Structures are given as C-alpha cells and as structure tokens.
C-alpha cells in the first residue's frame, strides 16, 4: 500500500469517526435536553419504547394465529402475561404486533399534515393579499366541519384500502390547525427586529428562513406534530372501531372491535383481553401529551437557560 493510500484511509476513518461522534453528540444533547422536564422525558421514553416494540417486537414475538379451544379467555399467567383471547390466542403478541400499522399511519398523517401546514402557512404569510385571504377562509371552513362525521361519510363513499390513503385523508383534514399557527408565527416573526437586521446585513433568504425564522418556530412545529399524531390515532381507531377501515392485519383498534363484537366485555375473565389494547392506546396518547412538555424545552433556549 502506498503512503498516499494509507493517508487517505486514515483521513477517511477520522472523518467517519468524527461524523459518528458528531451524531452521537447531538443525540446525547437531545436526550439531555429532553430530560430537563421529568414528565416529558418519561413520555418520550414511553413513545420510544412503543416504536421499538412495535417495529422490532414482531420479529421476536410473531403473532400466533392457532385457535386453542381449551384456552379461551385464559387468565394472565407468566407465559401469557395478558391472557388469551376468544380463540385461545396470546393477547400480548397481538398487542406487540398491533402497533406497526397504526403508528406508521399516524406518523405519515402527521408528516403530511405538518408539511401542508408549514407550506401553506408560509405561503399565505409571505404572499399575503388574496392568496392569504383565500387560504385563511378555507382553513376556517375546514375547522368548522366536524372531523369524525366527515371522515365517516368519506369512508362510506371511498374504499379506504391503504394506510397511505388513510394517512392522506387524515392529513388533509387536520392541516388547518398548524397552518394557522405557522401563518401567525411567520407574520409575527418576520416583523421582528432581528429579521430586519438580517435583511439589512444582506444575509440571504436562506439564512433568514432557516437560521432566523424556522428555529423560533420549531417548538410550535414539534408540538403540533405530536398533537397531529395523537389526533391521527384518535380518528384512525374510531374508524376501525366503526368498521370503516377494513384492516386485515393486526391492529389495536381491530382487537378492541373484535373483543367488543365477541362479547368479551360480558365475561369478567375476558376483561384483560379488551382492556389491553384500550390501555395500550390510552397510554400512548398520554405519553405523547407529556412529551410535548419536553419538546418545548428542547426548542426554547430561554427555558433551557433558566434551569
């Protein structure tokens, strides 16, 4: 090997190491900041746990589909901590396997609605005039229409066959909240003296958007992203429970729905079967709300400095 080659590999290695260290550093910093608010951090850890279990769990604990007539509504035991369902199948494995679709859809819906909200909000506030008036009016109208009934009627007419389509519908219905927040924020931020100063110093549009305005909106965006997710889970589960989104696969909503129709609620022994997915969803929603407190901390240096 020539000297040059050696040098270049060492250089290469160093940069990789640097990059990794850099990433690790920012992850560590993120965790430290999240931990500033104890309740928020707990929420964050729970959310993290949900994603790990829902996406990696199925590899370790595949869903068991064999009907075992002798074990119907078996009570919780060490082997089956959440007992058995109406066909004698393990409930825990269903819970583990039932999150992936819901979380993916919610994440997708939140991403799309955040993207729409930010884009339209920025457009409305920057262009102003007629475009602004029109968008504000459309947002007002969307906010006035009751969401769940509209979703239900839509699902009655349209076959919601894929997660992506469901996510899209949910997003299209939920963008106005973030739109209004972003619009108001941009309108107020761009009047700020420090943005004016950046204009005068000719720091460029990119700098003004990404360094001056966006960082000051991040806490809004992050929090409204979290609330978009909880909203998407709320609507999604409701649609599943109403039998409007025929998911074939495992899903917490489907679990509740089946448990309900199989009359699980009337057997005391079956309580765990129906309560397991109910609590799974409830805890997720709660953790999400808790997490927003930490998000606020992460994106607001003034709060950060006080501690």
């Amino acid at each position, binding site marked *: 090997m020539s000297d040059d080659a050696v040098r270049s590999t060492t250089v290469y290695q160093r940069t990789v190491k640097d990059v990794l260290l850099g990433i690790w550093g920012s992850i560590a910093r993120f965790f430290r900041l999240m931990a500033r608010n104890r309740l928020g951090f707990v929420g964050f850890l729970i959310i993290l746990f949900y994603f790990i279990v829902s996406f990696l769990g199925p590899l370790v604990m595949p869903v068991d589909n064999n009907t075992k007539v002798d074990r119907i509504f078996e009570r919780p035991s060490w082997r089956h901590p959440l007992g058995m369902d109406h066909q004698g199948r393990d409930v825990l494995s269903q819970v583990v396997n039932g999150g992936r679709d819901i979380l993916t859809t919610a994440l997708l819906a939140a991403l799309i609605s955040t993207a729409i909200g930010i884009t339209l909000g920025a457009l409305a506030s920057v262009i102003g005039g007629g475009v602004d008036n029109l968008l504000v*009016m459309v947002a007002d109208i969307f906010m006035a229409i*009751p969401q769940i*009934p509209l979703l239900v009627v839509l699902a009655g007419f*349209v076959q919601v066959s894929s997660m992506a389509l469901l996510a899209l519908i949910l997003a299209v219905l939920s963008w106005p909240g973030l739109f209004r927040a972003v619009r108001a924020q941009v309108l107020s931020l761009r009047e700020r003296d420090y943005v004016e100063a950046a204009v005068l110093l000719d720091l460029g549009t990119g700098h003004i958007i990404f360094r001056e305005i966006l960082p000051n909106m991040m806490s809004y965006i992050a929090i409204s992203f979290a609330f978009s997710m909880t909203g998407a*889970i709320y609507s999604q589960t409701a649609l599943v429970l109403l039998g409007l989104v025929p998911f074939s696969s495992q899903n917490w909503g489907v679990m509740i729905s089946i448990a309900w129709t199989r009359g699980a*609620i009337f057997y005391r022994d079956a309580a765990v079967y129906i309560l397991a997915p109910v609590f799974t969803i409830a805890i997720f929603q709660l953790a999400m709300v808790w997490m927003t407190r930490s998000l606020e901390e992460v994106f607001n240096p003034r709060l950060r400095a006080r501690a």
Partner: protein
Amino acid sequence: MRAVLSSYYVRQFGKALFTIVFVTSLIFFLIRLMPTNPIEKYVNDLMINEGRSREEALNEARNIFAIDLDAPMYMQYLDYVSKLAKGDLGMSLLSRGTPVADIIKTVLPWTVFSVGVSLLVSFIVGALLGTVIAYRRGSVLDPIVSALSSLLSAIPSYLQAILLIVVLGVTIKINGKSLVPITQMRGAYTPGIQPGFTWAFVKDAFFHAALPISVYILTTVGGWTLAMKSNTINTLGEDYVTVARARGLSDGRITTAYVGRNALLPLVSQLAISIGFAFGGSLLIETYFVYPGIGKRLGAAVTNRDYPVMQGIFLMITFVVIFSNLFADLLYSVLDPRIRVGGKGE
C-alpha cells in the same frame, strides 16, 4: 360606529353561510363524481335485482336521493339545493319510505340533550375548578387536578366509554350485581314511560343519558379546567387586576368581574370547537351505550351503506356545529366589547 359594529356580525354570518354552501356542495359532488357512484349503483341494483325499467329505477332513485340523474348537472345541483332548503333530505334506503328528515327528527333531540347537558356541566365545572386551582397554586389540589385533567383529556372518549362499561358494568360486581345496570340504561327512556315534561320522564331520561353524559364530561372537563387555570393565572398577572386591588375592590368583585370574566373569554371561543368534537365522539359513544341519538344512527347508516341517511345526518351535524360556531362568536362579541370594532383597536 354602528356600521363597523354591524359589519362584524355580517362577516360572521357570511362566513357561516359560506361554510354551509361549501359543505352541501362538497357532499353533492362527492356523491355524483365518485367512481362508484352510489346512485348509479342503486339504479343498477334495482334494474338487475328487481327487474325494473331504467325509467322506474331512476324515478325511485330520484325520490330517495333527492337527485334527478337524467337532468343536467347544474339542474341536479339546483334541485338538490332547493330541496335541502325545504328540509327535504331524501328517503332512507334501508327503511323504505321513511324520509331522512323524519329519522333525524327522532334521533337529534337525544344527542342535543345529552351533548348539551354535558357541555354545560363540563364548562361550568371546568371553569370553576380551573379558577380554584389557579388561585390555590402550590396547594395539594393543584397537582392532583392538573394530572387528572391531562389524563382524562388525553384518552379518547370512546376508550373511556369502553372502560366505563367494562369496569363499572362487568368487572366490578357486588353481590353478583354489577355496579351500574348497563343494560337497563340502554335506550333514551324506559319503554312504557309517557314522554312529556313530567318529573318521572325527565328523571328517566337523565338515567338513560347518564353514561354518555358522564363520558362527555369526563373527557372534556379536564380541558376546560386546564385552559381556565392558565387563563386565570395570566389574567391575575394583568395590570388591571393589580389596579383593581389598589382601588380597594372586594375580592369577590375582582374574582368575578375582573379575573373570571376576562379569563373566560378565550374559553367561549373554544366552545364551538368542542361542540363539533362532542358530536364526532357521539358516533362511538352512543353506539357503545346503545343510546338512540344521531351518532348511533349515523354509525348504523354507515355500516349499512344507507347513503341518504349518511348524507342527511352529516349535513345536519354540520349545520348544528356551524350554528353553534356562530352562536359562540356572537356570545364572544357580547362579552368582549373590543371584538365588535373588528380586530384590535386602532
């Protein structure tokens, strides 16, 4: 001054009207332009299954959907709108011959009753509780109420309904009887009791509505409490509250006319949103509690793909929500003199 004042009301009213036009048109075009148009499908079904002529089938469809398929699109639209304006929402597919308007007439009152009562109770309790914990910051009450509030408002209402049924109705049993007689509480009132403004009937109506009402209250009261708490804390920091104390006003007067009234203002504008939310939640809650309101009826219509009923109920719910929006806006303007001038002062 007059002109500006009325322009606020004109604007609000115009917005409501526009939203109604938008939603009704949306529904019309949604049905007409869908690849699997439910009306065409229905006509085809009639022709194939019952061997009717297209003429007959179309006539029947016109009756049921309040839409004439053969007319040009704009005529269909105008026809649909004028029928809507007259309160004609078409006929139910499932129970033939029953106008959708009649169905709505029988189910809407129960939902308005249960949602209305719970919203009122929840709003009042939340506002009071929020004020109390804002004044008693640092007491034991604060963290408990705050934690409970965020817990209750985070969990979806329909899951709380299931929890109530499972825990109160099934799991916990005393002497072999469940804590709450879930099955007896089904329906809007006990069969055999004569509806009317009698004590027995009102009592019975409340008994049957008790579960939906408690779930609505449980899910919303936390939100009102937290909102009122933070508004009250903000208002307590306002200069005019300090000045009012310096003026020697009594604590009672300051709490009600100064802190309370100003802290309540933002809540009033949230009232409309929460009405829409409650109607949305009623779909599942009424289904679970077997309460014959508009939500349960919509759920049933959707399951059976009874399109005219779906459409009619959806429009009805939207109208109710839009008018409550309008009402909340008007209420707000009565409570806050600044809004009437239109935005912030000049």
